């Protein structure tokens, strides 16, 4: 199956690969996986606690081209957005943007799950007293 040009672009030049300090209270980490294809995706956000804006986002994905492209695009899409806006992001946006075929839609779902998991982790950290924060 051929990948779309956009998938190839993100695959060959992934944006925002890397990691943020998991222990930073302003960083939320989402780690999700798709058992069957073995994909595992880590997506992190760094939030400005004053404004609630996602100032930085990083990812590292092990998996197929579509999974890498989906998470790469996801970091681009949420950067500069508020946490609440990012929470509204649906996988269909990624599907359309990357022209993912039906068999690869689960990659975009994984990316959406990763964003949500990262935001939840951030909120959990922000909501609980410092030191008690945990990542799943």
């Amino acid at each position, binding site marked *: 199956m051929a990948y779309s040009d956009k998938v190839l672009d993100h695959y060959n030049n992934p944006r925002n690969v890397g990691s943020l300090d998991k222990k930073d209270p302003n960083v939320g980490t989402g780690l999700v996986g798709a*058992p069957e294809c*073995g994909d595992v995706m*880590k997506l992190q956000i760094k939030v400005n606690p004053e404004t609630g804006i996602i100032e930085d986002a990083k990812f590292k994905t092990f998996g197929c081209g579509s999974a890498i492209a989906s998470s790469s695009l996801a970091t681009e899409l949420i950067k500069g957005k508020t946490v609440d806006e990012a929470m509204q992001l649906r996988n269909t946006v990624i599907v359309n943007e990357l022209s993912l075929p039906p068999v690869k839609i*689960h990659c975009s779902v994984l990316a959406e799950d990763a964003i949500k998991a990262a935001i939840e982790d951030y909120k959990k950290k922000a909501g609980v007293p410092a030191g008690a924060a945990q990542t799943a």
Partner: protein
Amino acid sequence: MAHLHDCWHCGAKDAASLFCRYCNTIQAPTPDYFEFFDMPRRLAVNAEDLKGRFYTLSRLLHPDRYTRRSEQERRFSLEASSILNDAYRVLKDPIQRAEYVLRQEGFTVGDQRNKDVPPELLEEVFELNMALDELRGGDLEVLPQLEVMRRDFLEMLAAIDRELEAMFARHDAAPPESRKQVLGEIRSALNRRRYISNLVQEVDKQLTARNA
């Protein structure tokens, strides 16, 4: 509970599964593996008993015995021998056996959208992938770490196998109407197992590539 039909050869009513019980002529073989071996549909299988049945049937069904028989009998013996080998391969392996029963009961096996990987495992999977990446990049310092992870994953597999064994026993003891639920649990365990075993294979591949 073998499925019985009328013998094609002597016409005896409900007389035949693999062989007619009146004229002993070979019959159109059943495609159901449990029926083929005349075994109850259970997930726990005695390996020795199965092996005994396999050898007996191998002898009885072997195409060499039918070279001078009718074309119909030769065809049945070929078909039966082929089913026999498939059936034995599947039923002797606990994992394949469970997957076979799951499919028969209408479960999909190996669905991409299942979410059976526990979150605490993901962390390890991620670390493992990182280490594999570094190894591919030529960093040999991760080798001891990989060995440790490989052992961890093998232990997880062994633990799942013990769980499965207990579930098989529960399935076999359960009344038919509550078997589906146990099968659902078995499917989850199998999905976790496949996920981990793929990882181990990937590690092995990388490690042998290094040692070669």
